[in-house]
């Protein structure tokens, strides 16, 4: 949770739902959204925005189902889906990635804790009833590699119920706002076992499992304890508040039951019709849970270096033709067909809609705003995990800065293969180190996160994929950049060198390989700061990302509906190089002196119907 000043605070988190989405993409993605929403309401916040990072192989029909599931849940609960990414790469053919991020707002003086306190207080379960769905979901799905017998795992996928999810949001927010509960905890992976051990770690809880409202007969106590039935929350309630809590649940027609009491034993004890069925010191399930050591070891350097022609993409078509092809490629073409399936307007806060870099939400009734973005790095992290980790952090921060947001916090989701394998452990350790270095350079903390390991099928691991969400504070949403205008100057700001290694261009026309140039982290941080400071004086700001500078300029021209006369050296690296931080800024000529901060290179002037020799209409058609 981060204090925004002026009495407001924001909390946010990204979480994976990869394995369930691989088995049943619609429900997997939907319950991924439901799960991250409950993480945020457990903080006592009202969720205001969702973002989704999706990674599939191109042409995988599960992608469309996952988008459907995200829409079905997010639209129905009335939380705006304002961003994310859709990445297509064969590395995710077997193990798809579905990462969901949620942003919530709350008054700065409200801190809902997850811990139980006060012996004698009551533990209240409310929301949906409990069934056998999702039993062992976390252990079966999230902690094992997938294999040929995936179909057997279908019953372990949880089923989402967005209507109950919506009621749960409203009840939880009202419980916290009215001060009726001491703490809230969502029921996520491993169900009651997990949420109650979190709550019990500093006090102790005695649990009557037979009081849990069930939806099917004959459930065993252990099944009740670890069921992952969705749309359930646990609250710690002072006895004198119970009647009011029950009345609120009744009003919203949610099931509720007192299922236990807080003790001072430090034990999590479960009984079934007054007969003890389980007892464990809660700390064994949390702070003192068993750990295993991983032994990182860098992989053997590849014996076969890719030939230079493949690395440089010498077989590629002319630059103009390559630009058109890249604009229409799965990873770069317009995302409008995706985000139009999501309600990105509910809440009436969305002052900058999805499309370019980061969306912006207004903090009504004032004019401050939050810029939000979610970005990952797979292919680059495969080539160099330390640089890839840093790139994920820097891109998220840069996107937020392009929308005028000063980055204030980050959240991360680490999607990796089996960490018991030394090479994967090494990738994980290196990526985390790279992320940490980038965070230090930016001076921005990571405040929450999640890991998803064992993303392997039959021994084939995904690209190591750190995904990073960033939230930035916009000083005045009336001054965020949008489209460039006739006569504006176009300038390039950059921090580190770019190369074709790991680029979209290389992936399309060559063979992915080569060495990533060294990132100048100090310069990267300066670039981010320059961008959010300059944004109010600029008509458009857009960072160079997938597809390089040429694609960045083309996207700006398409977005603005007007071309430009720009000069970019006639070589593939200048047009399509990626990696190092770069951004294009456009502003009226009289504003240039106000930009200051870092050296800028003038690329050209806005005007006309063409860009880099191609009509904007043709670029737009390729991109659509």
């Amino acid at each position, binding site marked *: 949770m981060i204090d925004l000043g002026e009495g407001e605070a924001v909390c946010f988190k990204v979480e994976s739902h990869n394995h369930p989405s691989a088995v049943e993409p619609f429900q997997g993605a939907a319950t991924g959204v439901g799960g991250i929403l409950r993480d945020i309401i457990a903080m006592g916040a009202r969720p205001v925005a969702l973002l989704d990072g999706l990674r599939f192989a191109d042409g995988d029909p599960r992608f469309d189902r996952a988008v459907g599931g995200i829409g079905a849940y997010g639209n129905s*609960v009335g939380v705006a889906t304002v961003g994310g990414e859709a990445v297509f790469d064969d590395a995710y053919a077997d193990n798809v990635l579905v990462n969901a991020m949620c942003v919530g707002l709350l008054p700065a003086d409200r801190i809902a804790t997850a811990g139980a306190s006060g012996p004698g207080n009551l533990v209240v379960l409310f929301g949906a009833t409990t069934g056998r769905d999702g039993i062992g979901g976390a252990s079966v799905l999230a902690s094992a590699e997938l294999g040929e017998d995936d179909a057997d795992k279908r019953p372990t996928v949880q089923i989402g119920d967005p209507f109950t999810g919506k009621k749960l949001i409203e009840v939880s927010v009202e419980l916290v706002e009215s001060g009726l509960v001491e703490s809230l905890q969502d029921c996520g992976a491993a169900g009651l076992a997990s949420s109650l051990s979190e709550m019990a770690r500093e006090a102790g809880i005695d649990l009557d499992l037979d009081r849990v409202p069930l939806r099917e007969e004959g459930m065993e106590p252990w099944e009740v304890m670890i069921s992952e039935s969705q749309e359930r929350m646990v609250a710690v309630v002072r006895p004198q508040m119970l009647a009011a809590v029950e009345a609120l649940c009744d009003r919203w027609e949610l099931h509720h039951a007192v299922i236990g009491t807080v003790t001072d034993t430090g034990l999590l004890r479960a009984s079934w019709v007054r007969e003890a069925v389980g007892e464990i010191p809660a700390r064994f399930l949390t702070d003192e849970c068993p750990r295993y050591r991983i032994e990182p070891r860098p992989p053997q350097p590849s014996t076969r270096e890719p030939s230079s022609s493949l690395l440089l993409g010498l077989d590629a078509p002319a630059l103009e033709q390559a630009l058109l092809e890249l604009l229409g490629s799965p990873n770069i073409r317009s995302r409008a067909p995706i985000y139009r399936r*999501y309600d990105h*307007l509910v809440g009436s806060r969305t002052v900058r809609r999805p499309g370019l870099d980061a969306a912006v939400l207004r903090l009504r009734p004032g004019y401050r705003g939050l810029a939000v973005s979610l970005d990952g790095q797979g292919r680059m992290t495969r080539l160099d995990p330390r640089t890839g980790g840093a790139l994920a952090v820097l891109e998220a921060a840069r996107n937020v800065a392009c929308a005028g947001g000063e980055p204030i916090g980050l959240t991360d989701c680490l999607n990796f293969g089996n960490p018991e394998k030394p090479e994967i452990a090494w990738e994980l350790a290196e990526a985390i180190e790279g992320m940490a270095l980038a965070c230090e350079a930016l001076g921005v903390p990571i405040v929450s996160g999640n890991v998803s390991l064992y993303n392997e099928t039959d021994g084939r691991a995904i690209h190591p994929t750190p995904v990073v969400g960033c939230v930035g504070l916009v000083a005045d949403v009336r001054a965020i950049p949008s489209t460039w205008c006739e006569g504006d100057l176009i300038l390039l700001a950059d921090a580190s060198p770019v190369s074709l290694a790991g680029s979209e261009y290389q992936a399309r026309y060559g063979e992915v390989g080569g060495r990533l140039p060294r990132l100048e982290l100090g310069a990267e941080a300066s670039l981010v700061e320059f961008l959010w400071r300059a944004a109010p004086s600029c008509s458009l700001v857009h960072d160079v990302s997938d597809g390089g500078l040429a694609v960045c300029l083309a996207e700006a021209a398409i977005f603005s509906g007007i071309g430009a006369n720009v000069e970019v050296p006639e070589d593939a690296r200048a047009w399509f190089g990626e990696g190092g931080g770069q951004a294009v800024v456009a502003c009226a000529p009289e504003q240039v002196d106000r930009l200051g901060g870092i050296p800028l290179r003038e690329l050209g002037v806005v005007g006309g119907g063409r860009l880099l020799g191609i009509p904007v209409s043709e670029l737009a058609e390729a991109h659509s």
Partner: protein
Amino acid sequence: MSVRPKIAVIVFPGSNDDRDAAWALGALGADAKPVWHAEPTLPRDTGAVVLPGGFSYGDYLRCGAIARSASIMSAVRRFAAHGGPVLGICNGFQILCEAGLLPGVLRRNRDLEFVCRDVAVRVERADTPLTRRCETDQILTIPVKNGEGSWYADEELYTELEQSGQLVLRYAEDCNGSVGDVAGVCDEVGNVLGLMPHPEHAMDPLLGSGDGALLLASLVDAAHGRVLSGTTR
């Protein structure tokens, strides 16, 4: 305006745009009151009623089919029968159609997908409680966001509605397969109205468009008129 006219915003379980509607109406000078679906009556001195967008009861059955029998709907019917302005937005429109207060039905969008985007909407009639601040043939930019927003009436009903001037708003572009590109309709008398686009999300150019404020301000005017004329009891 010296008096802030009271406008009831009905909240069903699953309503999503109720806060947005109340905020928009409040910004336009109304006293927006959230009213829970289980209430038997509307607040005293209600000048207009809004049924907001969302997914009442999850839309698990046909959209609006459960909400139409909510307790508050009897009071809404009585209010409408006495000439009170009633506006249904999106899911609220679906509820009013299901309740038989508005003609036609809303079906799944032609391409079977949820769609959220700005659309151009043309004002066909500028003499209703929703459009008095507009001009006939004025084009408004207002977002739609729905999966079942394709309005349908058979040929006979459509012709009848067209002749009686009940087709208040039409899309000025291809949107979702609605018959006659109809975006909003009213009842025979003209005081009950429904539309699929969301005027509460188009309150301010900062949000993409301020055109929705014309529609909601017209409704606030109508509510105010009822309060002044003493017809709210």
